[in-house]
Structure formats: structure tokens, C-alpha cells
């Protein structure tokens, strides 16, 4: 037995209109909830954006549709549904730039591709520079981006003010804004829609999306993966793709190998909704916070990880405070805004702050993790590249630099070095 495809109603204004006439009684399930089969060609662990995208591109680009995506909770409930959705591709190193720009290109057509409005909003992303070192590093990154075919501009302080009229260039006086990198094609997207849109398309092609199904162990024979143990019983698999974000080392240890990742809480917060006040994404590493405004009107604010290691999906109180200090520094007019909600997710951080997309010591088992604080933006690209890697059973041009072996060879892609930014 294999999973069955099921053609979906197309989403468009006309469909909405027609369904309105029948009082929305005839909308079908966006994805179904089948019981797991005995075995699949590929089992993807983790129903976040990356896992679902992997399944989607495996089905669409590689003709493998007998797939199950296993999610321990509800799809998109991990970091996909918790992140602050900054999308940009202006990374310093060639390997990262290639990966994130690959994703950026897919983002630009994703709403049509999925027939689901992921609200990808290219409102531009600024990374501020507050001292001479920042300026130098920013210019270096902008130059590298430019030559990598990525839209990236260096703005001086006046240029920043033009794009973000609300900013206090004095930076509160302590760390004035000296300039910024600006990527006009960067922006934000609707995180939930990304998970749901991929899920719907996966379902259409016959991929099984199995929620409330936690992987608890692996069946490995002679170094070859044969299946997974789950809370819904054993499920056989010819290949397994692990995409578990905050829990990658947990799964790796079930499979008998270790990862060089640390799991940290990463928090974010939103204000109450207000009428439009800021049209771009503004990030500052030196003062340390970033901000954008959602289409709902909330200011979406975040910063860096909590320094301790934890699986508790909540943040500490001091970090939210420090983040708001930084925001009030750059935007003193927001002091009277009110925090509506703060939350946290668990992110897996590699020593070089770059992800791992790799084959593993277990045959037939592949791993995609370590995206740290900034993997949402990579979702389509990561899924696309990882699917190709799984289908071929070997690294592709895009995934090869991100192999696990780089920690042995020393070929690191150090994106948290001086010249890079988080998220």
C-alpha cells in the first residue's frame, strides 16, 4: 500500500466567492490526517517548515511520494510557528549566500507555487552599523553580496533615515547609527502559512502528514536504517530524513551519533497592534535587537539567544528587558508601546553558526539541523536542497559545504564571525 494523492480545490478569489455562497460549508480539509502505513520510502522526522518543504520537493521534484512526515505535536508548532520571520539572503560567505539566495528565489514564487498566500513581503531588511568595525564589516559583506548576485546596498546614516524615518540616528546617544546594509528583497513572511501551504501540497501529492507522532527510536541493522519507532508504533523506512530543529541532538543520540550543537532558548515578543509605523525590518547587532511590524500591526521584536542551554520553550525575563532597552534606544517613540506577549523556542546552534545538511554515519539516514536563530528564511531552499540530497543519497553542490564532516576537517562556515549577523 502507498499513500494516495488527492487533487485539491484551487485557492483563488473565485473559489472564495463560490464557497461564500454556500456559507463556507464545502471547503475540504487542507491536509488529511491518515493513520501511518507500515512503511514508506522516505520518513521525514519533524513537521516544521523545513521538514514539510523537504517532503514537498521530494514528491514534486524527485517523484518520491510514498513519504510520511512525522510530527510529535502539531505541524509548524516548533520554531516555524514561533519565529519572527525575517527573510534575507545577504550572508557573508559564498556557501551561505548560495543557500539563502537559493531560498530567496524560491520565496519569490512560493505563494503561486503552493497556491497558498504565504504573504512574503519584500519590505527590505537593514542591518545597522554603529561603530567603525561595524561599518567595515558591513561594507565587506555588502561587497561580497554584490558579487554573489545578491541585492545589497550600503547606506550611510542619511540613507538609513530615508528608509526608516522613525529611527533615532543618535541611537539614544550612546551608539549612533553610522550606516547599514540594506537588502530590498529581504522582508518577512507568514510563518504558519508556510507550514500549512507545504502541508496542503504534500497531502495533494499523497504525502502522509502524521501529527501527534513522536519518534522514540530507530531500527538500525548493520549500520543501515530500517525504520523508526514512534508513539504510533513502528514505521518502516528505506530512508529517513531528520529535520527536528531544537531536538536534533536528541534524535542523533537515538541513532547513536553525536552532534556539535547546543540547544538554546531564543525569545521574541510582540507589542499591541498599531497603525503602520515602520515599513522595513531593522536589525542591530551592536545595540542588539531587531524589529519589524506585522501586517496585523504588532511590532515584532527579538534579539539573541538566552546564553544557557535548555529545552524549556520559554525565555528568561532579563533578555526581554535588554531587548526592549535596545529598541527604546533606536526608537524612543515606542516607549509607550506595550508588550503583548513574549515567548520562546529552542534553537540548535552549531559552533560556526551555520546549519548542517548531511548524510550521517547511519546509511539511509540524513540530517538537516543547526539552523540556529535564522533558519526560517532558508525554509524553501533548505527543503529543496535537502530533498535533492536525500533523493540522490549524496551531497549536492548546495549541501556539500554543510556536511557534518566539516567539524572534523575544519572547513567551517563561520557566520557568527565579526562580519555576520544573527537571524
Amino acid at each position, binding site marked *: 500500500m502507498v499513500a494516495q494523492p488527492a487533487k485539491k480545490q484551487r485557492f483563488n478569489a473565485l473559489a472564495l466567492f463560490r464557497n461564500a455562497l454556500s456559507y463556507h460549508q464545502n471547503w475540504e480539509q487542507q491536509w488529511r490526517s491518515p493513520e501511518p502505513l507500515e512503511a514508506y520510502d522516505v520518513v521525514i522526522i519533524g513537521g516544521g517548515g523545513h521538514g514539510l518543504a523537504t517532503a514537498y520537493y521530494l514528491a514534486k521534484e524527485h517523484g518520491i511520494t510514498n513519504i510520511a512526515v512525522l510530527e510529535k505535536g502539531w505541524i509548524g508548532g516548533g520554531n516555524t510557528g514561533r519565529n519572527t520571520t525575517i527573510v534575507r539572503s545577504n550572508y557573508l560567505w559564498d556557501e551561505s549566500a548560495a543557500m539563502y539566495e537559493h531560498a530567496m528565489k524560491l520565496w519569490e514564487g512560493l505563494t503561486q507555487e503552493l497556491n497558498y498566500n504565504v504573504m512574503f513581503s519584500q519590505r527590505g531588511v537593514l542591518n545597522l552599523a554603529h561603530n567603525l568595525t561595524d561599518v567595515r564589516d558591513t561594507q565587506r559583506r555588502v561587497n561580497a553580496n554584490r558579487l554573489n548576485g545578491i541585492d545589497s546596498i550600503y547606506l550611510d546614516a542619511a540613507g538609513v533615515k530615508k528608509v526608516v524615518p522613525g529611527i533615532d540616528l543618535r541611537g539614544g546617544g550612546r551608539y549612533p547609527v553610522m550606516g547599514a546594509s540594506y537588502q530590498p528583497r529581504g522582508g518577512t513572511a507568514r510563518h504558519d502559512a508556510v507550514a500549512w501551504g507545504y502541508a496542503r501540497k504534500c497531502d495533494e501529492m499523497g504525502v502522509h502528514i502524521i501529527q501527534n507522532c513522536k519518534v522514540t527510536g530507530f531500527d538500525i541493522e548493520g549500520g543501515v536504517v530500517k525504520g523508526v519507532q514512534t508513539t504510533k508504533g513502528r514505521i518502516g523506512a528505506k530512508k529517513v530524513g531528520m529535520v527536528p530543529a531544537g531536538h536534533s541532538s536528541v534524535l542523533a543520540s537515538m541513532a547513536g551519533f553525536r552532534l556539535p550543537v547546543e540547544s538554546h532558548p531564543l525569545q521574541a515578543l510582540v507589542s499591541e497592534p498599531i497603525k503602520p509605523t515602520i515599513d522595513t525590518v531593522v536589525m542591530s547587532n551592536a545595540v542588539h535587537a531587531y524589529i519589524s511590524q506585522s501586517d496585523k500591526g504588532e511590532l515584532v521584536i527579538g534579539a539573541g539567544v538566552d546564553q544557557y542551554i535548555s529545552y524549556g520553550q520559554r525565555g528568561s525575563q532579563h533578555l*526581554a528587558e535588554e531587548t526592549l532597552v535596545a529598541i527604546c534606544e533606536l526608537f*524612543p517613540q515606542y516607549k509607550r508601546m506595550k508588550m*503583548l506577549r513574549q515567548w520562546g523556542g529552542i534553537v540548535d546552534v552549531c559552533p560556526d553558526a551555520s546549519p548542517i545538511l548531511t548524510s550521517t554515519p547511519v546509511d539511509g539516514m540524513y540530517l538537516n539541523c543547526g539552523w540556529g536563530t535564522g533558519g526560517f528564511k532558508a525554509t524553501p531552499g533548505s527543503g529543496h536542497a535537502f530533498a535533492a540530497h536525500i533523493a540522490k543519497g549524496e551531497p549536492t553542490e548546495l549541501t556539500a559545504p554543510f556536511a557534518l564532516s566539516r567539524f*572534523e576537517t*575544519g572547513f567551517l562556515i563561520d557566520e557568527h*564571525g565579526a562580519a555576520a549577523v544573527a537571524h
Partner: protein
Amino acid sequence: MSQDFRLPAGGRIDRSERLNFTFDGQTFTGYRGDTVASALLANGVHLVGRSFKYHRPRGIVTAGVEEPNALIDCNITAQEKGTREANNRATFTELRHGLTTKSVNAFPNLNFDIGEINSLMARFIPAGFYYKSLLVSTGMWHRVVEPVIRRAAGLGVTDEVADVSRYDGHYLHADIVIVGAGPTGLQAARVAAKSGARVVLVEQDTECGGSLLRDPVEIDGMDADLWVATVEAELAAAPNVRVLTRTTLSGIFDHNMLTALERVTDHLDVQDAADDHRPRMRWHRVRAKQVVLATGSFERPLVFRNNDLPGIMFAGAVETYLQRYGVKTGNTGLFLVNNDMALSAAIKAKDAGIDVTVVDVRSESTGPNTERLMAMGVPFLTNHTLVEAKGGKRVKAAVVAPMNGDGTAISGEMRTIECDFIGSSSGYNPIVHLHCQSGAKLDFDPTTACFVPGAPMGATPTISAGGCKGLFSLNDALASGASAAQEAMDALGLQAAEATVVSASEEAHPGSLHIRHLWLLPTDKPTSKGGKFWVDFQNDVTAADLQLAVRENFRSVEHIKRYTTLGMATDQGKTSNINALGILSDVLGVTIPDIGTTTFRPPYTPTTFGAIAGREPGDFLDVARVTPMHDWHAEHGALFEDVGQWKRAWYYPKAGENMHAAVDRECRAVRESVGILDASTLGKIIVKGPDAAEFLNRVYTNKWMKLGVGRCRYGLMLGEDGMIMDDGVSSRVAEDEFLMTTTTGGAANVLSHLEDYLQTEWTDLKVYLTSVTEQWAVASLNGPKARALLSELCDDVDLSPESFKFMEWKEATVAGIPARIFRISFTGDLAFEINVPADKGMALWTALMTAGAKYGITPYGTEAMHVLRAEKGFIIVGQDTDGSLNPHDMDMSWIIGKDKDDFIGKRSLTRKDMSDPMRKQYVGILTDDPKEVLPEGAQLVNVADAPASAAPKSPVPMQGHVSSSYWSSAAGRSIALGIVKGGIARKGETLIVPMPDGRNVKVTLTDTVFVDAEGARQHG
């Protein structure tokens, strides 16, 4: 306008103080003690806002912090710029004289709002419509569609200019924090106070009393007011008690770290607030050993068709407006209830002379309240449903009908009852937010149809009492307050005091609800057709939306929330979540506890950014560290550069000089005569102990054991990954003591890195580290005349090159100041770094300047320092390195002790890739045109790859980048340093630097030393 709906007497308002305020441009009056909501209602104003999505007219529905509809912007006039505040709950905003307010989300005005067109289109824009439509191209989305959505969304308007208020942060420590000063919390505080614990009692309201402010029943034979006053007096007299009113406990974090927002001056009349010396708000961070939650409960409404019309409110709110504010919410009221307790509102309304009808959805209604109402002659319909509310900007009538036995359909004739307000109640939800924030779970109590606190969890559990525990009788609440405090005292190891026996009059508060839960009132048409059943008022989520979500297989409560936006409004589901769960449980056919709740996250209610940020924004964001000579630099025209937290002199322009000219002059002075640099900011760490040398041996790549006392050595520090992390010179002060220097920006990092190793990895080493960065001031004399100058001020040390060699240090007296002189050089010239105690820094500096005048001594800043060191090819960690470069890459293999057992990073250096000849390596870069100064951060490409434009469409392979670049007078041309793939072996090769302006500049890779290649000068 006159206050037509104000009762002639009663309430906790001060009728002697009339306060004027404006709402949407119209002036109204109210009384001291009013909220904006109660004052508006006193003036007969119900329509106060427009909903988020459909722009439906909305009225005040609650009398508290949970209000979803009545949001207002405050301080809205041009004169009040810098104080405007968006989205305040009118029900929680104290009235003050001169307050200006405005409704939100309505254009052009509240009465006629263009956005209401959305309401007409409601059928076509159900939950999640935007996922299924508007599938336009990315460009169209951002340029055309999104701006429309963004303008329609959002509620209030934020200020454009910086907030003028001050905010403060406080730290508190308490044995016990009690949250909520209603009868339960007061009773708990009383017991805790008597037991001798340090008590903090936190109350968000303006005064203590909680539910007693709305319902002043007798306690212990006393009038409620008197009882509250008695307890307050008792607490005020106790030195161990602190009562914080107007203070909201917003968050509970790990280990009972609590946060609380105190509103200090917001309630003052506008002029008084401006003159008040206190901060606008205080942000309290409280460490509590024990926490008792006495936060009470929220009422929830029944869900019926058109239940969002202005004038439809919670039954308890009607009661609060009557009793606490002396305000009638209308003249003809209909009460729609499913429980006994809510009927007390109908009684109060009747007492106040309002025409009252009761519609009770229960098949039987028999409690004392029912009997009273019947006795009062109030029309009382049981087993009836409210089919539909009628009206536009105000409810005008209710259509009611009898129901079948299981409450799923109407079973008789509909009839219309006129009314100008409806008070509705579907029961009560204990306020379990803080309990959940502390990490504990919830249990569902089917008899009261609500979630109650589950078993406490974690190392520091909170204790719930009273209403928030699901105890709805006043006597039970009072008793639980006392016992909660006693439990906390036991946990603290204190002898718990006996509670003074208290009892309230039973009849007023029976406590039993006899609730019938009908989550969606039956009507004549399916929920999806004709009219809407509102669940989340602000976000416009209807019962049909919830059903649609389930139909589309959004079954997890989190999915439903995200798909419909239920519970994501500013009230965070306080008024909607349980009703939604009830409706969903019917649709999904599972019990409410099986659906579960979404996560309760901090803050409990929206919390002001500025208060959380406190005093830090502005100059206090980060300390500005300055050297003892800072004032001198400032007086002599220096510009400063931020390096880490330090302000370092960058360059000292003279009149008419630009940066280039000033730096050039400073550099020439050093090479030709003598320059002086304030080097005080370099990190300085004393490494002391019998194993000090071994310690340095492990943290630096080179060898340290044999370095003699009085000698200095340059060291490179690697991270575990084998990459360069810091550098600096360390000097042996004694057999067991070194003085380590670090980079200015890296000092703190290095210290914690070293401590980390000492404390966790090398516990066998006897070494102590002390930062002395700020204890020493350092003046660095550089240049051929340095010795001549110094010898004029120092006669107790022989400065001759024979007896004081390069890389040695000596104790000396300079200008009468005890000093340490180090012969180390970052310029490649003859140099003496003179260290003196920090408080003597200025004296030393001025003495050197005075004596140096005849040599033309020139102060130079960091920019000249960078040029000078670049002329010598000396690296700057963090500029020429970026965390991805190892010593081999920097052509510094010489600094790795070949036969050392170990040092941090050694293992990583053995990895295959670390010695790959094609790694990026450190080189000099010279432009073909000696006048062209390359921009730092420019990239290098092979000649064959030179791009045709500044922004090529596809990637151009890059070879490396320019890390440092300057004009060098000493070299007589521009010089640059950089990192290039395989660069060390490629010296002499020509590459291209594609400039941002599109030019391709030709460069040649060279050695990294541009001046004094043999290095003679520094030994001079």
C-alpha cells in the same frame, strides 16, 4: 454633556471633584474615581470603538483589564506629543482632569467608519481568507495589497516623537508575594504579616478590595468598606508589609522571579503629572520565596447571534458600573444568564430603578437570587434562548424563544423584548494565567465549567486561593486566603499565625453556580448563515470561523488559534478562550480538557516598553568608559571612536584639517620625532600563582615557561576551534606573576574565557586572575625621539638600548610618578609604554606633553595607530582577522610552539582543512595607482573574473577581501592588507578589486611589511 446615566447617589466616586475630558473631540465630565469607561457610560456613550477586521461598532463590555473592545488612544493633542499612548483599555484608564482620548480603528470617525464595508463583505472574508485569496505576485503583494491590509489593521496610533517620561526599575525581595488584594489576598496578607514574614501585596487596582468594590457585602458584621479599611490599617502598621496598588504582576519566571508594573503618575491630572518628580512607572523585579495567587476570576459571556452590539455587556460589568461608579448602563435591561451568581446584577439593576427582564437558559432556576427577582416582580423566562440581538450602533431589542430540552434548538415562538442593554453571563473563569506561567498545569472542573489550577509544579510552586482557584463563595475564598498563607509560612519555616475568623453573609454569596453550559445559544438558523456569533470580539472571530477551521482540519487548539486569530487580540483570549473551547468541544466531539488550552505567556496584561526598559535607554545603555586622560583629549579637539565600551581618541584635527590631513600629520610625527598615544584602554589582567607560567603556556600558542622576570613576549590566543581570538603582550612581573594585555574590545571576553578554563577544565592549576585594566593609565611614547624625551623625566633607570632592551620592562620613576616602563612597540618604532596608577595618568600625560614640546610631541589617535601598525604589517584581531583565521593563515606559524604538549586550539589546528594551502591567507595589497586608497571591505577577484558591472547577476568567484587600507606617507603611497585564497604563495600576482562604483581596480599581492622591512627601528 450632562451625566444622565449617573445615579443620584452611591458608588466609590468623589462627586465633589468633577473632571473634564474629551473623547473623539467631544468634551465630557466625570468624577474622580471614574474610569474613562464609567464616565462615558454615565454620559450615555456606549459606542466606543471599531473591531479589528470588520470594523463593527463596538461598545464597552467589561469593567476591567480584560476589556477587548473599549480601546482608546490617550493624550492625543499636538501639545501632548511625547506622551501619546495607543490602545489603552477605557475600563482600566483612570479619569483625570484634562485627559484627551480618541477611539481607535475608525476612519473618518466612529459613527461613520469606511472600514465597515468589511462588515458587509464579511461573508467573503471568513477566517483565513487571506491564505486562500490575494495570491498575487510578490511584487504586487508588497506594493499593492499589503499596504491596504496594513492600513486597515492595527488599532491605535503610536507617538511620533520620543517619549518624554522617565521610568524606573526596582528590585524587591520578599518571603511572600501575594497577588491580588481582594478579600482572599487581604486575608492571606493578614496571616502572613502576623507570622512575621516579609510580605509584598500587589494589586493592579487603584485600591484594595477586589470584588468587594463592586459588591460590598458585610464581613464579620462590618460594612465591606470598613473591613477593608481595618485590614489595610493593620497591614500599614506592620513594618514587614509592603502594599503596592496600581501595580500589575505581569510575569512569573523561573525560580519565582516576578515582574510587576507600578503606574505612579498616570492617574494624576495632566498638569500635576507634568510637575511630579516621580517616574511615570516603576518596573519591579521581585524575588519571592513564596507566591500566593489571589487574582480572582473573570466573567465570560454567552454566545448568541449579534452578541457584539454596543450595549451588550457582561452581567458583572453592569453590576460594577452600578455599584462602584453609580452608573446605569441603560434604562431597560435584559439579563441573559446560565448561573445563579450573575443574577445578583439583575437585582442591583432593579434596585437602581432599571426595567429588568431575565432570560435564564436553565430549565430550572431556583436559587435565592431567582426568588428575590421573582419577588421583585421581574419578568423571568427560564429555558429560553436569546435568538438574536437587534440594533445597529446600540442594541435595541432581543429576540427570545423557548428551547428544546437539550438546548440545541428553539422549540416555540420567538418574541421580541425591547432593551437598551443586555447583561450576559456564561459563568466564571478563574484567572489562572500566573499559575500557568509558573509552569503548572490546569484541571477542568465540569461542575463549574472552568479550568482550575492543577497540581503545583517545579521547585518553587505558587499557591492559588479564592476565585482564581475556582472558589466562588466569599466564605470559601476568605478561608482559602488564610490557609494559603499558612501553607506558605510552613514552607518558609515560619510559625503560621492563626487567621482571625472571618465570615461573610452567606446569602449574598452562595458560591454555588448551578451552571448550565450552553456554549452556543440555539437559534433559528445554522450558525454559518445569517448573523454572526462573536467569540473573540476584538479579532472578530465567530463561531462559524471556528467551525470552518475544524472543517479544514485545523484541529489542534494552537492551529485553530492561529488560523482564526482567536485569542490573539490585546486581551489574549481572556474573554474568548473558554467559550471557544466549549464550542470546539461540541464540534470536535471531544471534551474541553482533551482539547487543551493554548499557552499562557507573560505579560498578564500589556506592559509598557519604556517601563521595562527603565533608565537604561540613552546614555545608560552601556557604560561609556573613559581613560584618566579623556578630558585632555576632549579639550584638545579629539574625535572619539567607540571601541567596545571605551571612548578612544580617534584623531586630533587641527583647525582646517580633515581626517586625512590630521592622521597623516600624526603618523609623520611618530616616524620623524615622537608621538604619544593613550593606550590605557588595552585589557590588563594579572595572572598570578605558582602555575602562572604553565597557565599562559596553555592559553597562548607559544612558549612561556622560560620567559625571564622583566621580559615581555607577544602571544596569540586561539579559540577551541583553532581560530585567532585575541593577542597581546604579556610580561613577567615575578616568578609567579605575569601582566597580560589584551585587545581593548576583547578584554572582558578574554577574562571570562580564561576563567572558564580555570574553573572548569584546569582546576589543578593554582592561578588567580584579576582585571587591572582600569587601575593603570598608559601613555605610549613612539618615535625616534622617544628615548630623549623620556630620559628628561626619568633618571632612576638607564634607558640606553644596551641596558633596557626591546621587549623588556622596568620599574622606574617618571615625572616623579612611580611607573612601569615597557619597551614594546605597536608602531615598529622606538617605543616606551609608560604605565602609572590611574589617578596619576593625567599628571604623567601633561608632564610628557610639556617636556615633549621641544621635540614637537604629537598626540595621535587610534586611526594613526592603525596606519602605523599596518605599515609594519601588524595584525589587528577583529579587523584583519574575523574569527575564521588561524595562525598559519596569518603567516604566523612561527608563533606556534612546535613541541608544546597542548594549548587551547591545538587539536583543532591539526584538522585537515586547517593547513590547506588554498585557505585564505594574509597578504599585502598594493594598487597599481599609488594614489588609490582601496575601501576596506572591498573584495578581490581574479583578473579573468573581473565583473562587467558593479552588481553582476550571477555569482563572481571571490578570492578574498581588503581588511585594512590607508594612505601611508612613510611608504609614500597607499597600502592595504587583506586575506586572499592561497595568498602567501601568490605574492606578485595581479588581482582585481571590483569597486562599488563599477570600476575594476588592479592590485598586486605583496608582502605585509611596507616600512622598515628589516625591523631596525623598534630596536633602536
